[in-house]
């Protein structure tokens, strides 16, 4: 039923819109035919041609009004009006370029600002974290004795929490301060930033490096070779995306001379397997 309705009406609407001249001509011809027939009848009844014409027109109660009513029936008046308004607006704007420029600048700034804010909100709030099961990831805070909360947790406490943990499937930590390092060796020395993390950090997020093994709890033990995971960006810029980077030795130097026992040696020559991190992690290099 609906489909059949459209079968008749859609071509008519399109015709009213895009063949307007023809539709108008047909309307004129249809009404002219009517008037001519009526004039014939009137003259046959004894009127003069002039009288007959006036009588026929009077019977229409205003020819132009009737035509307007017929146009209203085409159901495209809204679109026609909209199109006329649009053209009128364009003409008015072209006449006042200064005014137009101000409007355009205001619109551009407004749209730009909104887009920027939305990109941020989208990335930070709307999009889920780029890990498997992002809804199962939680941030654990420490409570401070003087009433503050959302504090960070000390390294030794982290190890205690982890060994006594029954609540979480995995429990990992990273240093809250960024550790600046000097990267020497082949090429120019470079200042880089790094972060110390627990051995199960990547397992917690369930991400794997693009190359190599990553960290395991074995790497936390003292006396082990120090292992580094490179960010994708650093791998590309410093090592030219070298696919044989795994197991190469690099020499990052801790800047601070004093370092806690747990961190000791981290700044020394890192030997053993150098592993490339996935771009997903976006570790600062």
């Amino acid at each position, binding site marked *: 039923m609906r489909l059949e309705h459209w079968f008749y009406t859609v071509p008519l609407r399109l015709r009213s819109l895009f063949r307007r001249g023809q539709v108008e001509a047909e309307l004129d011809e249809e*009404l002219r035919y009517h008037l001519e027939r009526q004039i014939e009848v009137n003259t046959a009844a004894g009127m003069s041609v002039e009288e007959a014409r006036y009588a026929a027109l009077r019977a229409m*109660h205003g020819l132009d*009004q*009737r035509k307007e009513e017929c146009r209203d*029936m085409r159901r495209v008046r*809204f679109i026609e009006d909209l199109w006329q308004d649009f053209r009128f607006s364009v003409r008015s704007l072209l006449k006042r370029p200064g005014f137009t420029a101000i409007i355009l600048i205001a619109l551009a700034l407004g749209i730009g600002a909104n887009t920027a804010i939305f990109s941020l909100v989208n990335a930070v709030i709307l999009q889920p974290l780029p890990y498997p099961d992002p809804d199962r990831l939680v941030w654990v805070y420490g409570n401070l004795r003087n009433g503050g909360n959302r504090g960070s947790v000390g390294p030794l406490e982290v190890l205690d929490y982890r060994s006594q943990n029954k609540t979480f499937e995995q429990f990992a930590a990273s240093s809250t301060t960024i550790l600046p390092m000097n990267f020497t060796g082949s090429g120019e020395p470079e200042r880089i930033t790094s972060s110390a993390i627990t051995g199960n950090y990547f397992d917690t997020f369930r991400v794997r490096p693009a190359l190599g093994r990553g960290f395991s709890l074995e790497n936390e033990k003292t006396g082990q070779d120090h292992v580094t995971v490179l960010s994708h960006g650093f791998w590309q810029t410093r090592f030219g995306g070298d696919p044989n980077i795994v197991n190469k030795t690099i020499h990052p130097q801790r800047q601070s001379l004093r370092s806690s026992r747990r961190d000791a040696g981290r700044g020394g020559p890192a030997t053993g397997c150098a592993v490339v991190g996935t771009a997903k992690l976006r570790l600062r290099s």
Partner: protein
Amino acid sequence: MYTSLGNRWRAMSKPTDLVQGTLDLLILKILALEPLHGWAIGQRLKQVSDDTLQVSDGSLYPALHKLEQEGWIKAEWKPSENNRRAKFYTLTRTGRKELEREAANWNRLSTAISLVVQLKEA
């Protein structure tokens, strides 16, 4: 500028001397018998109703255009009985259904009104 939109979209055929909406029914019924052009429809209305139903020439054409745009009748240009090109209207399949619907409505309404009019005064 668009406030009258609602009225435009629901435009009814409104001859002053007919119950609202009945002009549609009359046109559909007349076209169910044979395809006719506008002028002939007006003449036929006067004939079959013994000049009781005088539809003004003005209101006939907007009504025809409305019915056409609803898809109930379709138009075709053909030579008329005096050999001039005229716009002939034919009932469509959906138009026939609409005619049945409106005729049933009319019967219901007129029966109800007759019942009221025939009430005896106590």
